[in-house]
């Protein structure tokens, strides 16, 4: 374990290059190029704003912001859970051709999507200010929340990427599961809209405290609730350690299964 962490660390240059390649390659060939990384969330936000302030009126004040501060972190998580199934399959050539610690691939994928999320947060900050809300000192908690989500997402990515190599249906199953999970998490609705008897679902879901924390910080401008976040953090660490161990075991026959 220590040995393989050391090795992963020594491949940090590879991680850096792969992340850069992924971020730059994502919009390569398009006219606007890297600008899409910013443009994409802006356009999404415009659609939501139009939809929820003109067509579908909810009782929530500034619903577009309410939704958006939760949706962006969710999309990051979803790209690790659902998108994670393609991590190893997508790098087939690399894995089959050359030796390197394969453990770095999920790190590259998650980090690249994480940076994408950070760039979307530039848009979020702009919208928070433009919409007249204030960014309070609670925003200082944001890095903590992000790190907790990163840990959890990385653990999940290790699991989904390794299993999909052996069991290709996972890709489809995860697509559905990811959608269901989103609706079980208060991304589109607020906690008080949940009937009492379903409260258990909320507390059992480690993503709920994380999403709620983002909303607390950016929408309500208040300090997030600590106990929920702490549970998510502990769960995240457990998932990461377990996912890493599983990945380590399954990677031995990746090349033969690809």
């Amino acid at each position: 374990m220590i040995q393989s962490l050391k090795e992963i660390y020594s491949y940090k240059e590879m991680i850096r290059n792969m992340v850069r390649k992924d971020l730059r390659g994502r919009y390569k060939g398009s006219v606007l190029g890297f600008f899409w990384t910013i443009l994409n969330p802006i356009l999404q936000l415009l659609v939501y704003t139009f939809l929820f302030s003109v067509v579908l009126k909810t009782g929530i004040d500034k619903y577009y912001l309410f939704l958006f501060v939760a949706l962006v972190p969710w999309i990051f998580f979803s790209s690790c859970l659902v998108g994670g199934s393609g991590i190893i399959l997508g790098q087939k050539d690399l894995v089959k051709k050359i030796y390197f610690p394969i453990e770095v691939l999920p790190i590259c994928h998650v980090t690249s999507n994480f940076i994408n999320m950070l760039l979307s947060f530039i848009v979020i900050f702009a919208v928070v200010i433009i919409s007249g809300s204030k960014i309070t000192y609670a925003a200082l908690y944001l890095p903590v929340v992000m790190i907790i989500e990163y840990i959890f997402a990385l653990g999940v990515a290790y699991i989904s990427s390794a299993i999909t190599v052996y069991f290709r249906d996972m890709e489809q199953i995860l697509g559905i599961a990811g959608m269901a999970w989103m609706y079980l998490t208060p991304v589109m609705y607020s906690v008080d809209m949940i009937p009492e008897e379903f409260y258990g679902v909320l507390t059992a879901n480690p993503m709920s405290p994380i999403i709620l924390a983002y909303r607390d910080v950016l929408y309500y401008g208040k300090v997030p609730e600590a106990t929920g976040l702490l549970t998510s953090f502990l769960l995240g660490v457990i998932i990461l350690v377990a996912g890493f161990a599983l990945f380590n075991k399954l990677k031995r026959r990746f090349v033969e299964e690809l």
Partner: protein
Amino acid sequence: MDAIILNDVYKKFRTYYGKSHTLKERVILRNRNPYEERWVLKGIDLRIREGEVVGLVGENGSGKSTLLKLMTRILYPDKGEIHVNGRVSSLIELGAGFHPDMTGRENIYTNASIFGLSRNEINKRIDSIIDFSELGYYIDNPVRYYSSGMYMRLAFSVAINVDADILLIDEILSVGDQNFQRKCISKLQEICKSGTTIVIVSHSLGQIEKLCSRSIWIDDGKIRMDGAPRDVHLYYQDFLGKKIIEARRMAESEKESAQQDQNNVAVSRNTSREAWVESVEMINRNGEVMSVFETGDKVTIRIRYSAVEPGLKAIVSVGVVREDGVHCFSTNTAIAKMHDLTLMKNGTIDFVIDNMNLLNGYYFLDVALSYPDGNRLYDYVSNASTFQMISRDGSTGLMRMEGHWSVD
């Protein structure tokens, strides 16, 4: 110090009958085994010392490439242990992780970092990599616009300039044009001398003899022979030669039996039934029956015969014909003034060639037993033996003429 240690390594592959990865098939076929297990490596014990340059030879499917992949750690063994000490660079598949939209220079950084180099280490090597690739100002163009030759040159340059402790090579010395190939070989020779451990898989035995100090012959997942390249290759070629001869003999005997069924006449042999050749063997200086010899080797042609009664007088002849029909040499016991050669009921006669001076090629050996008058035959066997000659000194033609140069 050993660079690579393999202890009793086994590896099996699963051959799927139509690979199934989907839920339906997993559920329905759960208790059947839709695959067959095949052991590719069956107990490999191997130590390669630091700085050794080793060749792996063997037929297709013998497991030598799998062995190399295990050393690279792309594959893991099913049983046994592998220890590899030092940074490994492999020239197995070149250009791993190249992105077509990125420039040659950017791809060098990515590719080299996949080999485990840090940014500083890459910065130190970048000039020599670009230099070696001969890409010039193309290095700042996207790789997408490279010709396949340019692409391979870049990939090779990175892999070879990583300064690995251990370099693993699989049949890739066919990169680029003649000039670049020559450059690669001389770079490899330079690396050999610098104390890097190298393992090469190649079908070109000449290449291995040029570069390696040791050759390992893998046959059917096991080490068949391990030693100096020349020795190992001689036995390996002999093995291949015998296989070809065996296949030819099988094909011929099928043809023959088909013909015999038709008209019931023996076509290949012309025997009097008084005396006949039982077998013909070619034997090297160590007393081993071989089908491959080196030019200059001592070769014994051993003819076993039988006769209906002892006391028959006979002349024994041998003749050598090259594959393309060129008659190389014939002699007989009469020429050697052995006029009183008398056959026993069963016996052997050896013809010893002190220096087999034929050069590269395949040859046929004919053997005959004839009456002392030399006009009628007891028995005549054409193609009694097929053999191959290998010459290493580079001279060409039919045969070596012993001689030396003298300059005033």
